[in-house]
């Protein structure tokens, strides 16, 4: 039995195509949102490379590598979830969604731990009144760091909410009524957020010289 079709769509394929187009249009806007943040980063990095040489080594690239791996595996399990949603494999779908959520939550937990560590060491984006006139310093570097990673973390949090909603819906819905399109839409969003991190990781964590 094909997926339930809503007005004004003629058939499930038509409906799925419309969901994909809408989602990509939304992600196009998200590309430009994060693009502006990356422009902020690029402008600062080009004008003040010394900031990155001095402060990027304070970021923990080992931890960030673990976080990268967690997000990559979560994208893999998300792709499986989309497949299971379309084939109506209900138990596998709930399992794949839950695994994706656990990996996303692990990413956020590590991020929170990292933030706490930075705050303990005074690595915060405060306005450095005493340092005015001496050029940008630690607070500027960590300003960029917190803005970029903070907005990314908020997107991960939003994705977790959507995944939770999908998992509960899949749990309550009989397999024959499962719909693939909503899972696909959330999947596209989740993969996009993963891609943003794939650029943040080298841009911030690998920007300093990594001494062994």
């Amino acid at each position, binding site marked *: 039995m094909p997926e339930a079709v809503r007005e004004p769509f003629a058939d499930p*394929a038509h409906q799925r195509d419309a969901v994909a187009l809408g989602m*990509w249009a939304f992600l196009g806007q998200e*590309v*430009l949102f994060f693009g502006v943040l990356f422009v902020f980063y690029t402008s600062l990095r080009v004008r003040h490379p010394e900031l990155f040489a001095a402060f990027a080594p304070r970021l923990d690239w080992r931890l960030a590598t673990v976080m990268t791996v967690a997000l*990559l595996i979560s994208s893999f399990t998300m*792709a*499986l979830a*989309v*497949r299971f949603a379309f084939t109506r494999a209900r138990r596998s779908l709930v399992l794949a969604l839950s695994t994706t959520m656990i990996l996303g939550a692990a990413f956020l937990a590590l991020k929170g731990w990292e933030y706490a560590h930075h705050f303990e060491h005074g690595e915060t984006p405060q306005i450095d009144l005493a340092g005015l006139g001496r050029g940008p310093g630690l607070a500027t570097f960590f300003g960029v760091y917190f803005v970029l990673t903070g907005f990314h973390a908020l997107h991960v949090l939003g994705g977790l909410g959507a995944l939770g909603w999908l998992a509960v819906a899949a749990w309550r819905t009989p397999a024959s009524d499962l719909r693939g399109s909503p899972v696909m839409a959330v999947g596209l969003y989740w993969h996009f957020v993963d891609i943003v991190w794939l650029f943040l990781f080298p*841009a911030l964590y690998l920007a300093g010289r990594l001494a062994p």
Partner: protein
Amino acid sequence: MNHESPAPTIAAAFLALLALLALTATTVALAFLELPPAVHVALAMSIAAIKAGLVVAVFMHLMREAPATRLVALVSVILLSILMLLVVVDVRHLGGG
């Protein structure tokens, strides 16, 4: 376009994951090399772009979507490139900022 699942097969998704993990290891290893900073940035961002392309092509199955959908994705990347290019030209060569 697609009556069936648009998602990759489990085997294709797993291969993409392995490639992404290998590229992650590569980019971390390259960060330890003694290279000019500009080369470091170019290498790291190229690898990130390849990883993003893999995610888009395999996990996000963009090539299986309708032409209008592919166009929307392409335009957003072109706009971002123009934005980034002009800002870099300004900051590096025109004394902007």
